C-alpha cells in the first residue's frame, strides 16, 4: 500500500505492507526501511514497537484535522488521498473571499460590524464567549463584510462561518 502522508506540514512517501506475522508491518518512509510491531489496544490507542523502542500513539482530532499524540507530542498529520483534491483545499482562497470562522465553540456576545461595511485587516468583527473568557475575532484582510452570519446570543460551534470578507 502506497501512501503520501503529510506530517506537521512536511510530505512523506510511505510504502506499507504486512509482514509474515500478525501485527508486524514492513514500512518504507522516503527510502528508510523499518519493521513495525503494532497493536491497537483499543480504538485510537496504538502500541508501536520499532527496533525495540516503544511508542504510545493516541489518535486525536477529527477527519478535517487529524493528529497523533506520540508520547506527549501532538503531531498533526494528513493522509493525502490521490483520488480527491481535499488535501489541497486548505491552500486556496488567498485572494478570494476570506471566511471568518469561529475558532472555538461559544456564544456570540457582540457583533462589531454591519453587513456591507468596509473593514481593515485585524479589525474586530465578532466577540465570542466560552468558559468565562471573551475572544475578539478579527478580520483576516482588508475588505467588505459580504456576509454576516453571527447573531448576538447565538451558540456557534468551532469552525462555523461567522462572516465572509470580500
Amino acid at each position, binding site marked *: 500500500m502506497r501512501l503520501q502522508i503529510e506530517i506537521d506540514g512536511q510530505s512523506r512517501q510511505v510504502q506499507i505492507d504486512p509482514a509474515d506475522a500478525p501485527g508486524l508491518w514492513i514500512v518504507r518512509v522516503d527510502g528508510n526501511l523499518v519493521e513495525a510491531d503494532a497493536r491497537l489496544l483499543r480504538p485510537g490507542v496504538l502500541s508501536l514497537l520499532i527496533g525495540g523502542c516503544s511508542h504510545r500513539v493516541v489518535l486525536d482530532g477529527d477527519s478535517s484535522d487529524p493528529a497523533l*499524540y*506520540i508520547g506527549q507530542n501532538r503531531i498533526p498529520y494528513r493522509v493525502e488521498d490521490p483520488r480527491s483534491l481535499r488535501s489541497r483545499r486548505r491552500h486556496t482562497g488567498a485572494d478570494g473571499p476570506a471566511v471568518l470562522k469561529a475558532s472555538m465553540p461559544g456564544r456570540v456576545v457582540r457583533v462589531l460590524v454591519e453587513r456591507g461595511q468596509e473593514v481593515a485587516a485585524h479589525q474586530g468583527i465578532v466577540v465570542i464567549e466560552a468558559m468565562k473568557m471573551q475572544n475578539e475575532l478579527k478580520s483576516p484582510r482588508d475588505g467588505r463584510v459580504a456576509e454576516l452570519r453571527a447573531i448576538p446570543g447565538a451558540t456557534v460551534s468551532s469552525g462555523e462561518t461567522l462572516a465572509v470578507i470580500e
Partner: protein
Amino acid sequence: MIRRILIANRGEIALRILRACRELDIVPIAVYSDADRAAPHVLEADEAYRLGPAPATESYLRGDLILEIARRTGANAIHPGYGFLSENADFARACDSAGVKFIGPPATAMRILGSKTRARQAADRAGMPRTPGSVQGLASLDEARSVANSIGYPVMLKAAAGGGGKGMRAVSRPEDLPSAFDAARSEAERAFGSGEVYLEKLIERPRHIEIQILADEHGHCVSLGERECSVQRRHQKVIEESPSAVVDDELRRRMGEAAVRLALTAGYTNAGTVEFLVDNDRNFYFLEVNTRLQVEHPVTELVTGLDLVHLQIRIAGGEPLPFVQSDVTLRGHAIECRVYAEDPDAGFMPSPGRITRLLQPGGPGIREDCGICEGWVVPMDYDPMLSKLIAFAPTRDLAIARLRRALDEYVIGGIRSNLGLFRRILRDPDFCAARIDTGYLDRLLRQAAPDLAADTSDLVPAVAAAVLEAMQSAASAPTASPASAWKAAAHYEATGADPRP
C-alpha cells in the same frame, strides 16, 4: 446531625464533596444544569435534581431553587464548594433562615472578610501586618493622591469587592493616577456592582503565600501550614504547592498565628484561607481572605495527612476540632497543577468539546481530583477546569519528578488542554529552583517556548499514521477511503453519543 448534603456545585469539586459524604455515611444529593445532565457528579450521586438551563445565572447561581430542592429532598446541609454561591453572604443567611446548615462561615464573618477594605480593618484589629495604604474606599481622586503620596509610588489600586484581577491597576507615577483611578472604578462597578476602590503600596516581585485555617463553632481555630501559589497567569493560580520553599518553621508559626487571630477576631468558623504577599526579605503582608474551601486544598491535605472536607462537614455538624495546633505537622511536599481546557499555543483560547480519549495517570504519590471522563462533553458555560493533578513525594525535587512522570502518562484527546504548559514549567530551571513570584509565569510565557515538537525527520509519526491507515484499510470494506483511519476509532465516540429516541 448532618445526614443528607445537597452539593451546590459541579465538576471536580462536586465529586470531591460527594466522595467525602460517602465516607462519612452521608447521602450526597447533586444538582445539575442542562449542560451537566451527563456529568460525572450526576452519575455518582445518590440523587440528582435539575436546576435549569446551562448559564450559571439560571442554574448554579439560583440560590432560591437550590434551597427549594434542599427543602423538598430533606437535605439538612448545603456544601457550596468554591465559586458560584460559596462566598455569597445572602445565600448563607437564606440557608440559615430556612434551617439548612450552610457548610462554611456564618454570613456575618463572610461580610466582614469578603470586602477587602473591611478585611483590612479587621487585620488592623488583629494586629496583623498589611500593605501600607487605605483601609476604606477612596472617596475621591484627591484622597487617592494623598494616600499615594504618603505611602510612595509604585502603588496598586484595587476593588474592595474584587477578585480575579478585575478592577486592579498598578500605578508607578503620580501623573498616571487619575486615569488609573477612573479605569479601576468603572471596571469594578461593571464587574462587581460596586465601584469602591482602595489603594495600597505595590510590593515588587511578591510571592503569593496563603495560610489554611480551620475553626470550629466552639472557639477553637488552627492553622494548617501554608501554600505557595505564586505561579499565576492574569492573577489566576496555575500551580500551587506546600510547603513553600521560603517559609521556615518560624515564619510559618508567625503567619499561622496572625491568620488564626484574624479568624477569631471576625468570628470565623469552618475552613478558610488567609492570603498574604511575601516580599524578598520574607516580610509578609495581609492580602485578603477566601471564606470558603480553596481549589488548591489538596496540597494541604497531602502534607498534613488531614481531610479538609471531612473536617468542614464535622465542624458544620457542631463537632469540636479533633486535634490542637501542636498535633499539626507537615511531612513531604505536594504540588498541584490545574488542568484546564484551554490551548496555551493559541493564546489560551478556551477549548470546550467532547473528550474522545482519556488516558489518566496513576500510581504512587499521584492524586487526581477529576471532573471528567471519556465521552464527556466539556460545556462552554463554566470555567475551563477539567481536573487537578497533584503529586506528593518526600521532597520538592521528587514531587516535581513525579508530576513530570504523571504528566507524561496523561493524554486528553478531542479537546486541547494546558498539560503541555505544565510539562514546560516543571522543566524550567527557575521553577525547579523555586525562584518564583507572581510575575514568574508571565515572564516565562514571554520567552520562546523550547522546541519540544517532533523532529520531522523522525520516522515514527509517518510509520504510526501508515499503520493506522493500513489497519483501517484491512479491517474495512474495499470502498473505504484511505484517508479515514480516524473514522473507525471515532466510531466509538459517535455511537456513544446520546442516541435520542
